[in-house]
């Protein structure tokens, strides 16, 4: 997930709640005077105003009070969760919690359905968020969404997928080459995580060490994106890490030249920690005296985001 996503800062009052989540336990403040359960944690019982409270562990089961599926992310950093399955859960103790649902298809989500907690570790220091899934769903009650774990999972998935058979198109068969031109994009490539280490490495290589890329502390306070973002140029070159599933391969040529780009745009930022992926289409094929020139539009998106982060009309000359 994007590491620019807001994370909780526990207070002296709420720390036991967040410490519980780290260990996969849900604890709530409970009023010793009147027996009222309290959420969110606070100084007093909001029913009888006693300050005599205790922390008690609960099962975390409840019902879905309401939900919405977002078609526009509430923050660009949540683009990789689209649609966000935002929910309010009413625990069996009667308190309501703002949360998100996981492991469910859109059609499975119904107001009033029984739910159970999933403890989702989101940061390497063990910080966990409380998400929910359907009570009958067979998924682990603790999951790991730290950037490192997500990157490993994306890599494992990509290498597990067998490569489909491709039809071969001779580079000098003008009609066949032109038939590849399409308005429709290919399927998505594998996913790549753009983390701070990668950005720092690129800053060192390129010399572009502007703070909006390299200084997470300053960027958190001053950047309009709430944290650092990747260099546009970095996201562009990461194109080489994508394996875009194409149903053809160009064959028969002696040499393939990267001629540069007809159009290079960076329409949307890539917040640090985002997963990115790409897809492409053949935009134009032209027979030149030197060989066959193909223009491929490669669009790189943050996973789930409708707006591309990089549009590159790459020009290749086959000869």
């Amino acid at each position, binding site marked *: 997930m994007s590491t620019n996503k*807001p994370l909780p800062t526990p207070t002296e009052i709420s720390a036991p709640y967040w410490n519980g989540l780290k260990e996969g336990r849900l604890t709530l403040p409970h009023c010793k005077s009147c027996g009222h359960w309290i959420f969110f944690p606070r100084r007093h019982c909001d029913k009888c105003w006693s300050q005599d409270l205790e922390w008690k562990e609960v099962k975390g089961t409840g019902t879905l009070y309401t*939900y*919405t*599926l977002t078609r*526009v992310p509430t923050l660009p950093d949540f683009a990789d969760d689209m649609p*966000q399955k935002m929910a309010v859960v009413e625990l069996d103790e009667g308190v309501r919690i*703002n949360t998100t649902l996981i492991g469910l298809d859109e059609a499975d989500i119904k107001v009033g359905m029984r739910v159970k907690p999933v403890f989702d570790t989101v940061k390497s220091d063990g910080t966990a968020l409380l998400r929910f899934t359907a009570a009958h769903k067979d998924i682990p009650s603790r999951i790991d969404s730290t950037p490192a774990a997500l990157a490993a999972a994306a890599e494992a998935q990509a290498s597990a997928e067998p490569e489909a058979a491709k039809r071969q198109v001779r580079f000098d068969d003008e009609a066949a080459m032109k038939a590849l031109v399409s308005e429709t994009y290919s399927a998505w490539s594998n996913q790549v995580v753009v983390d701070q280490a990668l950005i720092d490495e690129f800053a060192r290589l390129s010399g572009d060490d502007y703070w909006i890329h390299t200084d997470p502390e300053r960027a958190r306070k*001053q950047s309009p994106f709430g944290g650092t973002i990747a260099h546009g140029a970095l996201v562009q070159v990461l194109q080489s890490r994508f394996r875009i599933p194409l149903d053809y391969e160009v064959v028969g040529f002696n040499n393939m030249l990267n001629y540069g780009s007809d159009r290079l745009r960076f329409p949307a930022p890539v917040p640090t920690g985002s997963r990115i992926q790409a897809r492409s289409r053949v935009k134009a094929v032209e027979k030149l005296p030197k060989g066959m020139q193909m223009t491929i539009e490669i669009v790189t998106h943050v996973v789930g985001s409708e707006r591309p982060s990089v549009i590159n009309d790459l020009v290749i000359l086959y000869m």
Partner: protein
Amino acid sequence: MGLKGNAAIVGAAQYKPEKYATAPRMFHLEQVADLAGMALADAGLKASDIDGLVIHGPQFHEAQVFVPAMAAEYLGLSLNFAEVVDLGGCSSVAAVWRAAMAVEMGLCQAVLCVIPARMAPFGPDEDPSWMARAMRFGGHSTAFGAPEAEFDLPYGHMGQNTGYAMIAQRYAAKYGYDPVAMAKIAVDQRTNALANPQASFFGKPLSIEDVLASKMVAEPLRVLEIVMPVAGGAAVIVASKEVAARAKNRGACITGFGEHLYFKSPTYATEMTDTPIGPAAERAFAMAGIKRSDVQAAQIYDCYTITVLLTLEDAGFAPKGEGMRWVREHDLTYKGNFPMNTHGGQLSFGQSGTAGGMSQVIEAFHQISGRAGERQLKRCDTVFVSGTGGVMSEQGALILQGA
């Protein structure tokens, strides 16, 4: 208990809504003076008549604190009562009844209620990206210790869209949902806007199909059911009977009001679909001593279509859970049997920040004073006005009646 109806809105002014990018940039103090001058001219009163001020404090450009004193000094006014309201979209309704109370208590003879909502010019040291940063969390507090910063933001719960969407979704589960009826609210209001040259969407007809084909933002809310933010600003003058007697227009007396709030996130409401406008409207009607059927027009705060639906139900115009059928059976245009948001509502007029709610107050005043142009109702003596802030979290109601 309550108001006797001795205070009346006698003058009003509001900027035509404009896109932020092209609207003039003015200091907020400058806008306050400009709007106040126009409202005084509208009323036919002098600046020296004003001895009270209710102003919107949050997001005031030139000061975070001491806003009323700074404004009084800038305006050159001597005040017996000064108040800041911080109730989001409910601030306009809230400002008007606070002003009426000050007048009825004998503190003031004329109170200026003003909300500037154009952007101020950027100073040499001001970083334009602060706006982007401030907008990032859509009005949610990010302060250490703020419950919403700790328990909402990490899950992506922020801004208004998803909160209203979740209220609508729960409504759907409890009572059923008819997207066509919801679209009709936006469409009837657009019909009203076509008779209002000041409206953002004047001259742009809208159909049910247009609304249903518009982009889904958060299920079940589509983009044409959500207000468009614009630059603007508005002011009204609330005066005593004595001052009202020398004003140019028929006054709109404040005969009833109510206000109710108890949560910021509707997640913590007793029941999300029973909104605070219920008790607020109940108090307003009781204070005015009138029935729902005495109302000749309703100006209902409309940040979203669902806000209108729930206000129609909870304020007692439509039976609970039957609002969609009720909307299908009523013509909400200025020519119809339940004239509502006759200026187009904020959905078609544009939402000029916190001043957006003032468009509803001012339309009520224009209808009562017989100055609503092509959309003027034949008879308009009694109008219900509502205000809504946050995610249905702070709500207020006014009953305005012709003098």
